[in-house]
Every structure is written in C-alpha cells, then in structure tokens.
C-alpha cells in the first residue's frame, strides 16, 4: 500500500479493522434473535462508522480525497433519502438495489486495479477478476430484479437455447478473465470487454426468472456480493473486507438455501428452469365454480366464530391492508374470538415479508405462527381468512403429482370449517397455477381489493350485534 511510510496510521487502522470485524459478527449474531435484533444493527452500524473513519487516516489533502468525500456524501445522501421514503411493501426491491450497488462497488475496485495493469501475481489477478465477474453480475442482475419487482419489467424473456447463450457468455468472460489474471493480456480493451460481458451475463441470467422466484434470486445476489467484497478485500489486503464479505457470503448462501427449500425447489431449478410455463397447461382446469360471498355475511360468520386463522399474502402487502387486518382482529378478539396469524415461509416477496408488515401494524409476534406450528390447528378453526395469498394455500401441492408446486409445504387452510378468500379477481397466482382451494365446498370468495374488503368486514362485524 502507498501508506506504508505512515506506520502509526497503519497500526491504528489494522487494530481498528479487528474491532470492526468483531462488531460486524456480533451485530449479525444479535440480529438473528427477535429480542436483540434492534441492538444488532447498531453494533454493525458502529463498526461501519469506525471502518470508514480509520480509512481516512493518512490521506493527503488532494483531488482524490475531495472525490472520496464528495462521492460518499452524494451516494450516501441519495440512499438515505430513498431508504427513509420507501414503503414497507417495496422493501424487497430496495434491498436488491442497495445490494446491486455493493456489487458494482466491488467491480469498480477491481476495475481500478485491473485497468492499472500492474503485474502482481496470480492470486492477486485471479481474485481481482473473480470478484469483478461476481460483482458485475450482481450489479446488473440486482437491477433487473429491482425492475421486475417494481413492475418496470413485466415479461419473463425466454427463448430456446437461452441457457446455452448464458453459458457461452460466461465461458468467454472466464477465458478473458484468465488471460487478464495471468497477465497474458491486460490491455484496456480486454478489460473493458470482460466487464461488458459480465454485466450482460447478469441481465441474461436474471431476465428469464419469474417474479415469484425473486426473493431467492435477491438472496443469492446478496451472498454473491459478499463473496465479491471478500475477494476484493484480498486484492486490497484488507482483513475487515475479507471477513465481512465472507461471513455475508456464507450466511447469504444458507439463507438462499432455506428460501429455496421452503418453496420445495432446488437453487438450480430456480435459476435454470421456468416456473409454471408448460406445467400450468398440463394441470387441467379444476372442476366446479368459485362461490362468492357478500362482506356482510362473511363478517357475521367471523363475529360468531370461536377461532379464526388469518393467512396473509402478497395481496395484503399490495393493498396496504395490514393495519385494517389488525383492526379487524382486535375487534374479533374483543368479542372473544381467538385470532391467529399463519405465515408461510415464502408468503409475499421475501421470507419474513409478512412478519415485517404485521409488525408494522402492531400485531404482537406471539400471535404469529410458522407453518409447522399452526398447520394442525386449521382443523379446529371455524374460519380461515385468506388475504391475497394463493399458491401457499393451494392443496394441489399435497395431492396433484403433475402440478409444478407438488410437494411444496403449504398451509392447510382448506381443513378449516369455512374458508373466506379475499381476492381481487378470478385470476391465478404468481405461479400461474389454478388454485383448487377456491373451488372447495367450504370456500367462499370475497372479491375486492384487500384494504377495502377488510374494511367492509370491519363494518359487518361492528353491525353484527
């Protein structure tokens, strides 16, 4: 490093980075338990502040320093405003965006080092190139994921031979990377083509993946960015970056696996095969008809129930209905009805998405149950209220082997005595699969946008006396 003549600064910096690594790991550890989670982000935040401040040590007052401060203020300022303003429902795509920025930063570090073209050994070159490839894929891939969740990109672009094309791009990028890493050719042209290919690969990899799979993809890119940061940490000989990046890399990989498992799909399946394309045609139309119900009748049914289980889904998030849902639940509780919330691991657009929204509305978390805890209880429930959830309560996952979601763990809402489904229309779920639950004899459909429908239910319950 250039700062090697400033030994005191180097010593303080090295000591500080050890403290930073400790703060990050402790912070993440605390974030994995509800009781300490809020303190966890403060620990990690303190680590980030220390890491940033000590990096300024020994910096000379020149153009570079001005650019560092300027870029930090602009980038950080924009992120601060957008992060404060974003609605809870749009959180997943915002995380995708911030994650992509991290990947882009890792790629930028590699770009600065690679364009310089210094010969610094194979390990240096290989990790710089690998971090650049992963970081660039994470940047462009996360942007596509953002576009899809934000509704900017509506179609899943698919054509035959797509995987071959992706492999081809990856292959050429790897070969170019090898030539750069070994120092065979480090010309600016080579490096530029390498980066363009990596960015294109992120786009072509992500475009064919359906919106329902985006949580898994975002989690995967989060893990990948961690790896890219760790690799660039080696390039810059910075232990804090290696440790933080690697911890996120492995934690993110585990989280990705947990999500894919909850959807009963392997990671390869998510990345390389379309969801519900040919398969939805294979599953024939379900016999019977959907039976509608008026909000007034549904409200009376709930008012005189012993026990009701609420199953929220993405529709609740879109309708911003979580506050109204909690109002309805409190109203029923005051009448002596036992109300519980059942959360499927992949309800919404991210695992835990529904928990965050219900927490926002003030629902205490001991009323909220996981799939394993609650499934046996549906048989004792008088009413199961499904709000904008679809595939996660589809019984074909249990009994139709031809269905693409066969084998996915679902909430057994169909076993409740009565099922009321709040839904905008008669369309299919995100996977495009017909939902057999909607056609059952004990199911009634309450058509309408989530917030409005729940509001009608509240009025109906109030009027029930």
């Amino acid at each position, binding site marked *: 490093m*250039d700062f090697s003549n400033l030994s005191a600064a180097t010593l303080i910096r090295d000591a500080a980075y050890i403290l930073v690594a400790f703060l*990050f790991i402790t*912070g*993440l550890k605390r*974030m*994995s338990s*509800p009781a300490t989670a*809020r303190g966890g982000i403060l620990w*990690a935040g303190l680590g*980030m502040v220390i*890491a*940033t401040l000590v*990096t300024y040590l020994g910096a000379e007052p020149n153009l*570079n320093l001005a*650019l560092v401060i300027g*870029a930090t*203020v*602009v*980038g*950080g300022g*924009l*992120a601060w405003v957008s*992060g404060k303003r974003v609605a809870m429902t749009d959180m*997943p795509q*915002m*995380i995708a*965006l*911030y994650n992509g*920025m*991290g990947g*882009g930063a890792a790629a930028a*570090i590699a770009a600065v*080092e690679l364009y310089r073209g210094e010969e610094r050994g194979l390990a240096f070159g290989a990790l710089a190139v690998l971090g650049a490839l992963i970081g660039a894929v994470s940047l462009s891939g996360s942007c596509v994921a953002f576009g899809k969740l934000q509704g900017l990109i509506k179609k899943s672009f698919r054509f035959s031979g797509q995987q071959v094309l992706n492999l081809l791009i990856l292959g050429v990028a790897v070969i170019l990377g090898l030539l750069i890493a070994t120092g065979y050719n480090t010309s600016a042209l080579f490096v530029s083509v390498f980066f363009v290919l990596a960015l294109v690969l992120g786009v072509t990899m992500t475009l064919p993946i359906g919106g329902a799979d985006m949580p898994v993809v975002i989690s995967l890119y*989060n893990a990948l*960015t961690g790896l890219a*940061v*760790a690799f*660039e*940490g080696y390039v*810059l000989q*910075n232990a*804090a970056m*290696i440790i933080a*990046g*690697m*911890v*996120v*890399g*492995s934690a993110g990989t585990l*989280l990705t696996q*947990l999500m894919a498992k909850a959807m009963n799909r392997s990671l390869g399946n998510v990345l390389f095969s379309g969801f519900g394309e040919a398969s939805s045609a294979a599953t024939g139309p379900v016999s019977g008809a959907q039976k509608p119900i008026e909000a007034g009748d549904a409200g009376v049914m709930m008012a005189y129930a012993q026990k009701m289980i609420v199953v929220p889904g993405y529709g609740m998030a879109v309708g911003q209905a979580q506050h109204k849902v909690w109002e309805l639940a409190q109203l029923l*509780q005051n009448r002596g009805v036992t109300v519980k919330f059942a*959360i499927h691991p992949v309800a919404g657009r*991210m*695992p*835990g*998405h529904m928990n965050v929204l219900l927490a926002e509305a*003030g*629902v205490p*978390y001991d009323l909220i149950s996981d799939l394993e805890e609650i499934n046996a209880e549906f048989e004792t429930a008088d009413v199961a209220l499904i709000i904008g959830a679809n595939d996660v309560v589809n019984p074909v996952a249990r009994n139709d082997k031809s269905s693409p979601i066969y084998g996915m763990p679902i909430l057994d809402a169909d076993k409740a005595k009565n099922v009321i489904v709040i839904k905008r229309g008669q369309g299919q779920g995100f996977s495009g699969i017909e939902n057999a639950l909607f056609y059952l004899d004990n199911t009634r459909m309450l058509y309408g946008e989530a917030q409005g429908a729940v509001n009608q239910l509240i009025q109906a319950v109030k009027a029930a006396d």
Partner: protein
Amino acid sequence: MNGVIAIYIFMLAGFTGYEVISRVPVILHTPLMSGSNFVHGVVLVGAMMALFQAQGLLELVIGTVGVALAAGNAVGGYVVTERMLEMFKSSGKGQRGGHR
C-alpha cells in the same frame, strides 16, 4: 498478508457466517438479509482505498462511481434494516397483555 493465512481467514469467516445464521427464525429472514446486505457495505472501505490510490482520469471516474455506489449500499442498507427492526421493538411490548 500471506496466501495461506488468507485462506484460513476465508475459511473461518465462512464457517462463522454459517453458524451465526443457522438458528434464525423465519420472522427475521428479511431483516437479516437486509442486515447482511448492510454488512457487505464495508466495500466502501475498499472503494475509498482504491480511489485514494487512483491516477489518471479513467481510474478517478471509476473510483468515484465505486465510492458513490458503496456509500449507497452502506447507508441504504443501514436505513432500511433499522426501519424494519424498529417495528420489532414496538411489537410484543406495549401491546395489551390480555390477547390470549
């Protein structure tokens, strides 16, 4: 940093990440993904180092973009994680106790 030591650091940090996450309840998956997203915002340190050493227009431009992106990752990651976890504080406590 010598290569073998670096490999040890990579390996041990990898195990640490796995262990820290392995017993996390579903309720915290999204905040935790967001939190880990914030932690790799430490890339800001690297981007700053790269820009401090940058020479010539191309390196300066790329370095500046890198620092801006990294700052966005760190600050944005912190803000959204903090907002999500803020809600967990209010739930459970402060609610009427007699809901069971």
